[in-house]
């Protein structure tokens, strides 16, 4: 489903990704772990299409198609979903207006009929009930006045609603207490499916206690240095990243 081949990315003169290669199969949950400043967030932005990054070499294939030339909204319509580390607040934009615009833009791009309001409301309310998103949150402007946990729950609600093929979770555990972490993880686990891949980016093993990965990749200095099974995450938790920082330097 997702194949990243020899990806080199710079911001200005600074090289951030340095020949990163990674594959995530259908139905797989791949975890990427690594110290701060290794380009984990850059990877998530480059895959989802944010401006400001120079891709100097390499490919990002989604189901065999190179998506690097596509605008962010086109990638979203093809099934890329980024759950943000820091979901932005957008005052004045009602959450429901935003959700409907997102869902129907994607449907239009795929040549599907737009959802009418009753059908749309039904889907939102069902997803909200599952994720413990209270009605009051849906009535507020997008992410405004939400706690850290509420913002992350809203991200997962969007994920449930948009039914992406590839979900990228960028440090979804940051700023969450244990209860919120559990709710968010349960939301993610409920979305695991054989035609959906996950790229879970995190510092800590803790999130992976809740979202069990199939594969774990260690990233440092802009590339994947080691790949393995879930046991690799446990090993990192005890030994830290110091070996990898040294290795890459």
């Amino acid at each position, binding site marked *: 489903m997702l194949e990243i081949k020899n990806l080199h990315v710079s911001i200005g003169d600074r090289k951030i990704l340095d020949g990163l290669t990674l594959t995530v199969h259908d139905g797989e949950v791949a975890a990427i772990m690594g110290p701060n400043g290794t380009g984990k967030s850059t990877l998530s932005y480059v895959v*989802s*299409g*944010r*401006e400001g990054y120079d891709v100097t070499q390499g490919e990002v294939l989604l189901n065999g198609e190179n998506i690097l030339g596509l*605008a*962010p*909204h086109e*990638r*979203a*319509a093809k099934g*890329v*979903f*980024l759950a*943000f580390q820091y*979901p*932005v607040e*957008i*005052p*004045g*934009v*009602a959450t429901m*207006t*935003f959700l409907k*615009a*997102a*869902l129907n*833009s*994607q449907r239009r*791009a795929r040549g599907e009929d737009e959802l009418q309001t009753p059908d749309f409301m039904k889907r939102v309310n069902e997803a909200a009930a599952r994720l413990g998103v209270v009605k009051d949150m849906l009535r507020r*402007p997008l992410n405004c006045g939400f706690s850290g946990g509420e913002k992350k729950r809203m991200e997962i609600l*969007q994920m449930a609603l*948009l039914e992406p093929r590839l979900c990228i979770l960028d440090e979804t555990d940051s700023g969450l207490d244990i209860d919120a972490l559990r709710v968010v993880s349960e939301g993610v686990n409920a979305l695991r499916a054989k035609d959906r891949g996950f790229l879970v980016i995190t510092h800590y093993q803790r999130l992976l206690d809740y979202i069990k990965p199939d594969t774990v990749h260690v990233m440092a200095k802009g590339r994947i240095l080691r790949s393995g099974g879930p046991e690799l995450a446990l090993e990192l938790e005890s030994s830290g990243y110091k070996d990898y920082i040294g290795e890459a330097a």
Partner: protein
Amino acid sequence: MSDTATSATADLKTAFDAMKDAGARPLRQSAWDAFSREGLPNRRVEAWHYTDLRAALCAVAPLRAAGPATPALARERESCRFVVLDGAFRPDLSDVSALPYGVSVLSLREALACGEAEILAALAGDAEDPTLALNAALMQDGAVLRVSPGCVLERPLEFANFISGGAARSVFTRSLVILGAGARATLLESFTPLERSGSQENHALVMVLGDGAKLDHVATIAPQSEDAVRVVSLLATLGENSALNSFCLVEGGGLLRRQIFATLSGVNADVSFNGASLLRGRDHADTTLVIRHESPGGKSREFFRHIVDESATGVFQGKVSVAPLAQKTDGAMQSKSLLLSDGASMNNKPELEIFADDVVCGHGATCGRLDADQLFYLEARGVPKPRAEALLIEGFANEALERVKDEATRDALAARVAAWLRMREAL
């Protein structure tokens, strides 16, 4: 004075000579004298620093005869409407035969002819501004409304100003609404060209709120042609425990100066002035307000959002002055601008003038572009960039629209914002 300024003054003098015997001669004469001392304001006049009216009005359009006999007038919503067309109050086009209980209406001409002292004093106002003085000297017509004390009106009242197209004309209107003690009403005010023209309009609305009266006011200023020059003034005087919540949507078009002069004369008076302006092309829209707290316990809120695209220019000047007596005043002013192109510009000038020592007053003014993080967030969810920009711009305007209490009115305003944005998306 330059030749063009001399010629403009001579043309205005001709207009004054035509109007001076149309009632309230002393009021007109003293207003004309006040205007003549300063002439049309230019940038050397501090309150007009960002808007050069003298340069814009180098050729004064004539007063013309009243417009068409049976025009087709759009109606946005259910109201008790009073129509002023090309500067003439038109009872035949107004809902004068079905006035709500407790409401009386006269045309300005009738009111001036009656010469009732209370009305004349209210109409004169006490704000000092050359364009307001000119308005008082040349006022052609308008509507004078009185709402009896204690009267609570369900149906909104509406002052609808229409201007015909065709050759440019000058129009001077002055209207008055007096709310008796404890009265409650909603007043809609609209300025709409029937066809766009280079009109030169000077409109003034005077509001007098009795003790405990409450008024919700929503004004809309529709787009006019690029060579139009419009001054729209609001004068409000608030009695004890009265409250005014006012909103104005400005859709640009030529040069527009909207000015507000509010005096909180009774204790615990409460005003809220809000607005959104949508500017593009070579629009120039100036919102200038002067809020005077004269009694203790007053509260004032100003909340403005300016959306400036292409080569348009926005101006916001807000002055809050607190008299020595006006202890416990609570004032907050906020003006935010969104610049959508490199050629767009905004001038913000908030000002506080405080002579009392126990007050809370603050102001904030910002000027920025669309937020890249917000834009990417929307795009990453599948919203194409032009639509994502429109959502953010709409959201920015909504922050001001949210201050309008009535949902139907708010929806109608939001629809106008959306229509303005569709033109942008279509480009």
